């Protein structure tokens, strides 16, 4: 068989010979993509409002999940633990604004980026000190069995995660478009100085946006924690969000969602049908290849704003 046949015809034949399985791969990709989007959303929110690439977003997911499971383990009910975790993430946002962002206002973006690297290691160590390094089971009552539909096996947990991510996006869209604070956030994102000149308080905006990113981190932490248990490798899921951000643009909420779906479906199809040709395990780098291919066509990402600078 020629290389052309092996690389193109073989996998396509394979897809055509079992469409139900192909459907399962696509659905699996969509649901995994929604989970990537959840993590990417946290990055987008902070970048949109402050231009800061928050290196600590992955650890924020971990910290939120650790706090939630830690409280549940100590006897708190799920809803009480959720509320308390939300409170902790809001307090954390205040602390970050006061101790990290405020002293560095007007510094170059790279300095703020470096500060988030420091924040990343601090939160990781602090989380470990508070809650320990053991693997913890996170059970918030979402069923985790699979069921069959039209010859396809679908996982209930992933389906729930997809649904919750969709609801979260709608809520965020309403928050950004329809509320006063949301409009202020967009104004800050467009132009810091112009926003300040019309009286929008930058410090408040930063607290709000870090709080919202913290709340999104709780949702992402629950979904990923339910999948793999709450453990320190949870912070590495940030790596899964990067190709989503490259593809969807760093400033676009819909971009994070659509980007997540494209990456999720693309990497699953790539791994299942083309992976065996090269010994497998192409999923991780295939996502980046896919994102880079899009980048060549739209450097600002799918939904990113085109940068036009007068020279």
């Amino acid at each position: 068989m020629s290389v052309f046949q092996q690389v193109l015809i073989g996998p396509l034949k394979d897809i055509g010979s079992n469409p139900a399985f192909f459907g399962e791969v696509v659905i699996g990709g969509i649901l995994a993509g929604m989970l990537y989007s959840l993590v990417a959303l946290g990055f987008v929110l902070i970048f949109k409002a402050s231009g800061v690439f928050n290196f600590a977003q992955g650890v924020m997911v971990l910290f939120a999940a650790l706090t939630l499971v830690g409280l549940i383990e100590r006897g708190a009910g799920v809803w009480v633990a959720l509320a308390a975790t939300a409170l902790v993430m809001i307090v954390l946002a205040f602390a970050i604004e006061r101790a990290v962002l405020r002293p560095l206002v007007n510094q170059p973006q790279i300095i703020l980026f470096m500060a988030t690297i420091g924040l990343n290691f601090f939160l990781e160590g602090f989380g470990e000190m508070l809650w320990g390094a053991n693997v913890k089971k996170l059970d918030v009552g979402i069923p985790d069995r699979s069921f069959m539909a039209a010859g396809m096996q679908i996982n209930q947990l992933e389906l729930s995660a997809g649904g919750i991510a969709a609801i979260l996006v709608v809520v965020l869209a309403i928050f950004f478009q329809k509320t006063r604070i949301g409009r202020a956030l967009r104004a800050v994102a467009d132009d810091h100085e112009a926003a300040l000149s019309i009286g929008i308080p930058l410090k408040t905006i930063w607290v709000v946006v870090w709080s919202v990113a913290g709340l999104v981190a709780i949702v992402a932490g629950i979904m990923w924690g339910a999948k793999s248990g709450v453990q320190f490798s949870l912070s590495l899921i940030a790596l899964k969000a990067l190709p989503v951000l490259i593809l969807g643009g760093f400033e676009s909420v819909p971009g994070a969602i659509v980007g997540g779906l494209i990456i999720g479906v693309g990497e699953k199809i790539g791994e299942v049908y083309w992976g065996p040709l090269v010994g497998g395990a192409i999923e991780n780098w295939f996502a980046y290849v896919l994102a880079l291919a899009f980048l060549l066509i739209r450097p600002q990402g799918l939904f990113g704003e085109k940068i036009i600078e007068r020279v």
Partner: protein
Amino acid sequence: MISKRFVVVAVALALALGPLASAVLAQGPSIFIPLLVYRTGPYAPSGIPNANGFQDYFNLLNERDGGINGVKIAVEECETQYDTKQGVECYERLKSKAVLINPYSTGITYQLIPKAPGDKVVVHSMGYGMTASADGRYFPWVFNFPMTYWSQASSFVKYVGAQEGGLEKLKGKKIVHIFHNSPYGKEANPTLETLAKAHGFELTLLAVDHPGQEQKATWLQVRRINPDWIYLSGWGVMNGVAVKEAAGIGYKMDRLVGNWWSGSESDVIPAGDGAKGYKSMTFHAPGAGFKVHQDVIKHVYDKGKGAAKKEALGEVYHNRGMINAMLNAEAIRTAMAKYNLKTAPTGEQVRWGFENLDLTEAQLDKLGMKGMIRPLKVSCENHEGNGLAAVQQWDGKQWKVVSDWIEPMRNVVRPKLEEAAVQEGGEKLKYAKRDCSKEK
């Protein structure tokens, strides 16, 4: 009045010199054993119980027996975060005082193997590391007893054969190997491929990239292949996710068998009840029902010197850490007996002790570990010893051994191992082959 600057300098000096002071205290007429540990980072859930097991056993020897033959053991931990670069830095920092090292990472082991002969430091990679180094004729300073990855993989196939009613019944069966896409994860592949040809089973190799948090594509392929058995060579979060995915697609859990780095408590916790029935290979028994545990409680924990919580005694990795420490100690004891020492042995003497270790049932009984691990004999040619494997199963609350001890297919493994030793030791590292008949 004390100035602010003075306080800052004093605190900085205290922080900087504190570890040095403890290292100085650790010196003296004691046997110094550095511990490369990973108590932080993504692999900490596996690293912590292992490190605690080491600490508890060495503490037991110091508290109960005054050390080994009256010479105290001094340990110093160095944090690697399971990172090869950090592990090599730890080794370089501690090697001048060390006579042996347990790298606790296949990646670190590979880096230390070429350094060991020059530094006269024994490398003991217990059940991990480079399989080829079990040929002591090429690798005099490296030991991987009680078993290697290849022996383990052959024991797995033997177990599956027994479950199916004989090795001849494997013909036409489908076995999938899901492995961590790293040198560690790939170690079992050549043995499985050889055995697939020999016994006619259909082998599919599915690699999972680090860290293995997302494995949907792998398990979609498993669904399509519908294998009779799955062998899992995972690490860290990859194991928990794999067990959970298997439960999620309704795979028969008693046909999913992890290797011995995929069978701890932290690997089954995320899947909850779904993990019931999951099996893994092992070379020692789990549980805290051995005499050595009573001794640890009496001489270490009751004195408030325990490294872990008392409830953690008997966990798979805590037991493994204790067994690793025991094997180190017994090799040192062997060396001290040979050279009639009342002081700490040198690296070369310890190497002799490792190579001539003969751990009998009677000695294991004396140590309170009878039944916890099989007797073991190491030789100049054979640095993996004559260890046996077993299969343990998770019942939802604890691991329990569910098989007899399994003899690896040494007739298959040893020739391949010797071929690999020629390549890795003779050709790559330019080591000369020792004539073991001339060694005493």
